[in-house]
C-alpha cells in the first residue's frame, strides 16, 4: 500500500522509531566518535537527546503533523546533550518551522522540511566543518529538493534519502582528515542515518515494542536496562558480522537479500569491501548469499541470547560482589582475552573491553568505576584516545580516581607492576606515571587502508611496525617488519623484552621469533605470552 501523506500520528511513530533505531546503534555511534573531541560519547548524547525529546512529545496530544513537529523541536531543544544533540535540535527546529501549519505532510512537504532543517542547522554555526552530520543533512536535503515537482509515496522518498544519506556518510572521511586517519565515518552522521532509517521503518509499518524502546530509555544505566530485558524476547538470535571482499558493480541486490533475513542490519561499502552486520536466525543463508559477491573475511557469529544471559549474570555477580571495602580499585582497558587475563592476574578488578578502533565511552568508564570496590580507583586506559574519556569520567564520580596516562598495553602492565599497596594513592599515581616512560612499546599491526604518513606511502594490508606511536617500518612481510622495527628500538640498555602475540599468531611462530631475537641480542631476555588481541600481531615491551 502506498502511503502518500504523513499525519500527526504517523510522524510521532516515525520519531519514536527513529529514536529506537538510534538507541539500538548507540554503542556503534559512540565507537566512531573521533571529532571534534574523541571522547566516544556522540551516540550516547544523541540518544539522550532523542529520548528526552520523545518523553516530552509523548506527554501531549496533537491533531496535526505541524503540532507534533513543534513538540519534537521543543523537546529536542530542552533535552539537547553534546554537540551532536544541539545540531539535532536545530535540525528538528528547521523541520518543525517548515511544517508549522501543515495538517499532514506530502512528499513535497517532507522534502521542503528536510531542506529547511538543513538550512536552519547551518545557520547556527559560523564556520561549518564538512564531513560531519551537517554534510549528511545538507546533501540529503539537496537530494530531496530534486523531488518537489510531483507528489510521490513518502516511503519512496525516504528510501531515496536513506541511500543518499548512506552514500554521504561513506564519503565523510574524504571531507574530514581526522576521520580518514582514524579509518571511521562520522559518528553524528551515522546517528542521523539511524534516525532517517527509523523514519522509513515506521512509514512501512515497523514498530518497536514499548519494552524494546524502554530498554534503552533509562539514561541512567544501560546495563540495568539490559537486565530488565528478557532473554526470550530476542527475536533474532545470531549477531552475524563479516566483510565481503570483491563485490560487484551493484551490490544492492545483496543488501536487499540480507535485509530480509533479520534486523539491525548495517551495510557499509568501502572501495572493494562491504561490511555487513545483521541479527538473524539464518547466519548460514547470509554467508551463502554474500559468497556470490566476493570472498568472506573476518566472520563473526555470536549467539546473542547467550551474550545477553552473560550480561545478566555478570550484573548479578557485580551486585552480589559487595565484600568489605578495600583501599584501592583498578580498572584497565584492554582487547584480547590473554591480555585481560594478565591484567586480572596483576590485580586489576575490572577490565573494560576496548582499545584501538573501539574506544569505550566516558559512560562505560563511569559505570566501571561505580562497580569497582576501592576507596581510590586507578584507571589504566592503555590507549591515548581513551585517556581523555577516562579523565572525563574522573570528574563525574565522587570517589578519588587516578588516571595513569599509559598509551599502550605494556605501559599499563608496567604501571600495574609499579603499584605498591603500602604507600598512599597519590604517591602511587606519581610512581606509576613515572614508570611508564621507561617502557618502550613496539606494536606490529596492519594498515586498514591506503594512506600517507609523513612521506611514507602505506598501502592497505601493509604490515606496520609502530614504536611509541610512530610508524618505524612498513612492508609486506610480517617477520621482516617485526625484526626491523625491533632493531630500531632495542639498544644496549635493553634487558627484558616481553611479547604478547595476537589472535592471528600461532604459539610456535612467536617462540621462533623469541629464539631468533635472543640469539641476535646477547643480553636480551625474551618472554612470550598469548595476548589474544585482535588487530595487533605482536605487542612488545622493551625495558
Amino acid at each position: 500500500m502506498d502511503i502518500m501523506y504523513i499525519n500527526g500520528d504517523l510522524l510521532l511513530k516515525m520519531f519514536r522509531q527513529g529514536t529506537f533505531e538510534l538507541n539500538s546503534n548507540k554503542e556503534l555511534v559512540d565507537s566512531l566518535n573521533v571529532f571534534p573531541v574523541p571522547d566516544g560519547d556522540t551516540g550516547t548524547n544523541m540518544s539522550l537527546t532523542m529520548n528526552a525529546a520523545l518523553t516530552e512529545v509523548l506527554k501531549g496530544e496533537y491533531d496535526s503533523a505541524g503540532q507534533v513537529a513543534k513538540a519534537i523541536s521543543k523537546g529536542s531543544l530542552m533535552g539537547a546533550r553534546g554537540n551532536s544533540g544541539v545540531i539535532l535540535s536545530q535540525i528538528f527546529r528547521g523541520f518543525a518551522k517548515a511544517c508549522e501549519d501543515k495538517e499532514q505532510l506530502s512528499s513535497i512537504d517532507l522534502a521542503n522540511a528536510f531542506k529547511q532543517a538543513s538550512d536552519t542547522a547551518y545557520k547556527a554555526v559560523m564556520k561549518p566543518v564538512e564531513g560531519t552530520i551537517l554534510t549528511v543533512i545538507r546533501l540529503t536535503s539537496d537530494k530531496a529538493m530534486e523531488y518537489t515537482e510531483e507528489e510521490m509515496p513518502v516511503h519512496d522518498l525516504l528510501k531515496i534519502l536513506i541511500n543518499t544519506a548512506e552514500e554521504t556518510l561513506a564519503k565523510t572521511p574524504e571531507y574530514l582528515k581526522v576521520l580518514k586517519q582514524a579509518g571511521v565515518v562520522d559518528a553524528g552522521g551515522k546517528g542521523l542515518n539511524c534516525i532517517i532509517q527509523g523514519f522509513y521503518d515506521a512509514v512501512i509499518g515497523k514498530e518497536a515494542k514499548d519494552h524494546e524502546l524502554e530498554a534503552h530509555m533509562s539514561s541512567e544505566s544501560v546495563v540495568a536496562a539490559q537486565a530488565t530485558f528478557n532473554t526470550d524476547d530476542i527475536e533474532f538470535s545470531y549477531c552475524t558480522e563479516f566483510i565481503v571482499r570483491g563485490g560487484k558493480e551493484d551490490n544492492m541486490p545483496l543488501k536487499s537479500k540480507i535485509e530480509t533475513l533479520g534486523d539491525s542490519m548495517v551495510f557499509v561499502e568501502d572501495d572493494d569491501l562491504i561490511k555487513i552486520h545483521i541479527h538473524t536466525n539464518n547466519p548460514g543463508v547470509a554467508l551463502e548469499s554474500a559468497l556470490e559477491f566476493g570472498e568472506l573475511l573476518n566472520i563473526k557469529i555470536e549467539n546473542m541470547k547467550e551474550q545477553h544471559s552473560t550480561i545478566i549474570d555478570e550484573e548479578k555477580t557485580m551486585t552480589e560482589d559487595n565484600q568489605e571495602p578495600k583501599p584501592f580499585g583498578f580498572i584497565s582497558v584492554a582487547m584480547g582475552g590473554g591480555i585481560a587475563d594478565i591484567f586480572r592476574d596483576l590485580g586489576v578488578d575490572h577490565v573494560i573491553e576496548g582499545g584501538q578502533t573501539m574506544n569505550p565511552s566516558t559512560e562505560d568508564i563511569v559505570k566501571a568505576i561505580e562497580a569497582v570496590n576501592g576507596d581510590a580507583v586507578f584507571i589504566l586506559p592503555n590507549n591515548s584516545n581513551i585517556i581523555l574519556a577516562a579523565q572525563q569520567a574522573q570528574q563525574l564520580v565522587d570517589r578519588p580516581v587516578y588516571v595513569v596516562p599509559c598509551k599502550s598495553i605494556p605501559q599499563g602492565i608496567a604501571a600495574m607492576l609499579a603499584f605498591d599497596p603500602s604507600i598512599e594513592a597519590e604517591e602511587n599515581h606519581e610512581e606509576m606515571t613515572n614508570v611508564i616512560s621507561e617502557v618502550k612499546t613496539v606494536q606490529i599491526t596492519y594498515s586498514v587502508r591506503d594512506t600517507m604518513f609523513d612521506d611514507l606511502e602505506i598501502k592497505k594490508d601493509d604490515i606496520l611496525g609502530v614504536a611509541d606511536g610512530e610508524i618505524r617500518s612498513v612492508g609486506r612481510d610480517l617477520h621482516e617488519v617485526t625484526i626491523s622495527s625491533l632493531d630500531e628500538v632495542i639498544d644496549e640498555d635493553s634487558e627484558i623484552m616481553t611479547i604478547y602475540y595476537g589472535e592471528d599468531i600461532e604459539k610456535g611462530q612467536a617462540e621462533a621469533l623469541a629464539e631468533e631475537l635472543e640469539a641476535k641480542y646477547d643480553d636480551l631476555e625474551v618472554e612470550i605470552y598469548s595476548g589474544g588481541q585482535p588487530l595487533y600481531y605482536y605487542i612488545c615491551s622493551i625495558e
Partner: protein
Amino acid sequence: MTIRVENEIGTIDINSDVVATIAGASAVECYGLVGMASRSTTNGIVNLLKRENLSKGVLIQMEEEGIAIDLYVIIQFGTKISVVAENIIGQVKYNVENQTGLKVLNVNLHIEGVRVQS
C-alpha cells in the same frame, strides 16, 4: 607576551597571539557559535568581529600551572546555550592542549550576545 616551555635542550616561546588564534579558530568551528565579540565593551556596544580578527575576542592569561582562556562570543538564538557553552569550552580546551602542548587550566566563556535574525 609569550608563553615559555623549557626542556633539556632548549626553550620554546609561544606568542600568546598564537594561542589566541588557535583558540579563536577552534571556537568558530563550534556548533552554535555565530560570532566572536570584541572584548572592548567600554561603550557598551558589542562588535561582531570579522573572520580575520579571530583572536580579538580571545583573552589569554598565563598562570603558573598553565593558561586561562577567556572567550567573548555570540550565540545563535534557539540553541540551548548551556550545552553549546559546554561544547565550546570542551572543544577549545582540547584543541589548544592538543596543538600547543600547554595545559589549559580553564576556559571562561562570556556570552555577549544572541543573534536572533535567521
